[in-house]
């Protein structure tokens, strides 16, 4: 397995390597940020607000005079891990439902597919707004909401993949042998759709990062005193006219995270390698 991963890395095109480096960088920051952060995220370290980059404070200060670097190192974990968790939850749920729908067919497929269509028809931001307004914002709720929003997209893709695979003879062979739904789903079908599913999960991850940042920007995401990348942009919005690093840095952070993930996904797509 490890051998195959290394072999895959060696054939990765340059854009993919850049993407991989960015993704690894952000995962490290998310995991180790609090350890390496020079200050506490809530500590007021400077008299002046929106101060520029300096030898002491590399990325300057925010609208309250807190250290931007420390806040970024602390905040990245919410964005990265919430997005990763939500994307995984969405893919696991969507794919499981898709496999059941595709293998069982009939009314089960019909009910599941139409329910997913219904979910798709609700605009994602409004859906999130209503739920956050109703239940109040919490990290768990955010995770669940974002997973639910991205389940239908994954369900559609996974179901289409599974339906194609089910028509192949090896699934017929398994059926003729008398195998049950679980065996067919888990052993015959799933291993053959894992690559496109991983790509889809990467894509969902990017969507969730953007949605979460959007929600936080609207003040509905991660709540103070915690702050994710989107909240960092929002709270420093008044520094925009001055071109303060406090607003530019988190914006760049979001951009590099999503662009990096995108580059990596594109490079991993079958056929992308020359």
């Amino acid at each position, binding site marked *: 397995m490890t051998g195959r991963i290394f072999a895959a890395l060696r*054939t990765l095109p340059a854009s993919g390597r850049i993407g991989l480096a960015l993704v690894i960088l952000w995962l490290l920051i998310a995991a180790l940020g609090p350890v390496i952060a020079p200050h506490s995220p809530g500590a007021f370290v400077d008299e002046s607000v929106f101060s520029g980059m300096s030898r002491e404070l590399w990325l300057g200060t925010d609208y309250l005079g807190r250290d931007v670097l420390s806040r970024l190192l602390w905040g990245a974990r919410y964005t990265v891990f919430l997005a990763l968790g939500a994307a995984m939850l969405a893919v696991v749920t969507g794919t499981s439902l898709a496999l059941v729908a595709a293998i069982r067919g009939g009314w089960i497929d019909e009910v599941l597919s139409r329910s997913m269509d219904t979910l798709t028809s609700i605009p994602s931001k409004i859906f999130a707004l209503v739920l956050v307004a109703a239940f109040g914002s919490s990290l768990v709720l955010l995770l669940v909401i974002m997973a639910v929003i991205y389940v239908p997209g994954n369900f559609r893709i996974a179901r289409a993949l599974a339906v194609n695979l089910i028509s*192949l*003879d*090896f699934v*017929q*062979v398994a*059926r*003729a*042998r*008398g*195998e049950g739904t679980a065996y067919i789903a888990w*052993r*015959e079908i799933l*291993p*053959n759709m894992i690559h496109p599913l991983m790509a889809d999960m990467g894509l969902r991850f990017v969507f969730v990062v953007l949605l979460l940042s959007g929600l936080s920007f609207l003040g509905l995401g991660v709540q103070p005193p915690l702050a994710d990348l989107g909240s960092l942009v929002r709270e420093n919005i008044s520094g925009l006219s001055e071109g303060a690093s406090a607003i530019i840095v988190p914006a760049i952070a979001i951009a590099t995270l999503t662009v990096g993930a995108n580059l990596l996904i594109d490079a991993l797509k079958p056929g992308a390698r*020359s």
Partner: protein
Amino acid sequence: MSVAGRDIAAKEIAVEVRGLDIAVHEASGNRIPIVRDISFAIPRGEVLALIGESGSGKTTIALALMGYSRFGADIAADVIRVGDMRIDKMSRSELTRVRGRRVSYIAQSAASGFNPSRTILSQVIEPLLVHRLADRKTAEARAVELFASLALPSPETIGSRYPHQVSGGQLQRVMVAMALITEPELVILDEPTTALDVTTQVEVLKTIKLAMKQSGATAIYVSHDLAVVAQVADRIAVLKDGTMCEEGSVEQILNAPASEYTRSLMAAAQPEARPDAQAAPDNVLTVSSITAGYGRIRDGMPAKPVLRDVSFSIRRGAALGVIGESGSGKSTLARVIAGLLPAAQGDVMLGDEVLPRAMARRSREQLRRVQIVFQHADTALNPAQTVREILARPLAFYHGLKGPAADARVAELLDLIQLPTDVLARRSSELSGGQKQRVNLARALAAEPDVLICDEVTSALDTVVAAAILDLIDDLRRNLGIATIFISHDISNAHAFCDDLLVLYAGSVVELVSRARFSEGLHHPYTRLLVDSVPEMDTGWLARRSAADAPAIARDAISPALCPFLPRCSQAIVGACDTEWPPRRERDGQSILCHRDWGELRPSGHGVQGRTTVMS
């Protein structure tokens, strides 16, 4: 401009290839030759056949004559000449002007070669319009002429139809029209009849041959089938692994093949009759009055019936051949027996036990006793599993074998199918077509079935490989006493291989005959048509076949209450065949579904001679 020492030196050489090498470059920089040092010349107006198995480079060579290579392979040659054009010296834009105009290409599958959303006519005249050779009106007139010369029905109006509105054989002829419309100097035909039913193939071969002669074009005919090539080609080049084994006139290749490989190809194409199986007298599987199809079942009739009143039985260790063309219901029959498609009426009995119609209600033991080997070995093996995993599963599932016991049994199975143990760790993508089909077979054998259903197991394989697989199945059923249902479209192979033959036409059993009666010939008019349509390795066969009585012209509307073969039957009786369902006539070891009595039907020659040759 002559090729030294050849019997064709006197004629004008229209196509010349010398020292052709084609190689692919791997990402790692390795250069892998796929075609090596090919040279040939074709006199004007003659047809050269390129014969070989898949992977022999026959299509690659043919495409090189258009200056085209697949997968970015590069072409190197001393000379590739078509008429006065040096294909090997041409730039990309020059080649674009040549392709489809002076060299045209007819692909194997017309169905995928046509755009389904445009009419036939608009696509046939496209080469003329693209190359600005004619205006639309002249082009259309020319197309209609070609349709007529290719014996297409209603040539004036057929062009306004869409590709799905004509039959496969007709579409293939339309493809020929498209290739000939620019009056090219060279036509490349790539297995143009391989995807067709044998009865359709005859008609298409006839028209292709005639049209080629009329147009005077030089042609390259790519095929794996020596008997087909014998009908249309003037010369044959035999290829193996990208090199040329031999080249010569059709007569020379067929009568006095110089290379060992050509002889093995010919031997594989002529199935030898197997001795009688020492089958036990007890019936292991009995199918009685099965009616099945697709869609909602109402009063025991499905909305789209595929099989009607099918009955037969098979003894332990015997082989039953189920013969029919595409759409006759042979695969549906396999699915009904296995329970994948529940029958609407009738019973499948295993010994004395009536099997539930639906698979879900059959016990694991009942499922174990009936195993299917599917046609497409490519898709029948899970690409994500290794051979070991594939073979171990039925052992665990049916016999509860695990650990060393399972390993030992897997090794035994590999031995049975004659594969080395190092395939165990491989996945299906790392196996050849023949190896895949052997693994496929081993998986079915792992269940230790009483009945083995082989659904066209050799149709996707090369002749030599297919012959080996057939031998293997034959040995296994004799040694293990497995009743084998051998579904095929190839009557000559089935005839040599099986103890009983069942001929399906449009879902009805039109003839059922046992080996004891083979010598008296097959009787039903459809069976005769099938037998007569199998090309023989003899250059005169097509001409003789053309002189034989042609089937009556198809009548369009056919009622389900009448004999399904009526529209194509040359022996239909007015007042009987067109008014009521034919009776089943039975005599010892043979039955037919026909209004004509035994004495009125001319049996097919001396049984099925298969591909009798002029070699003996």
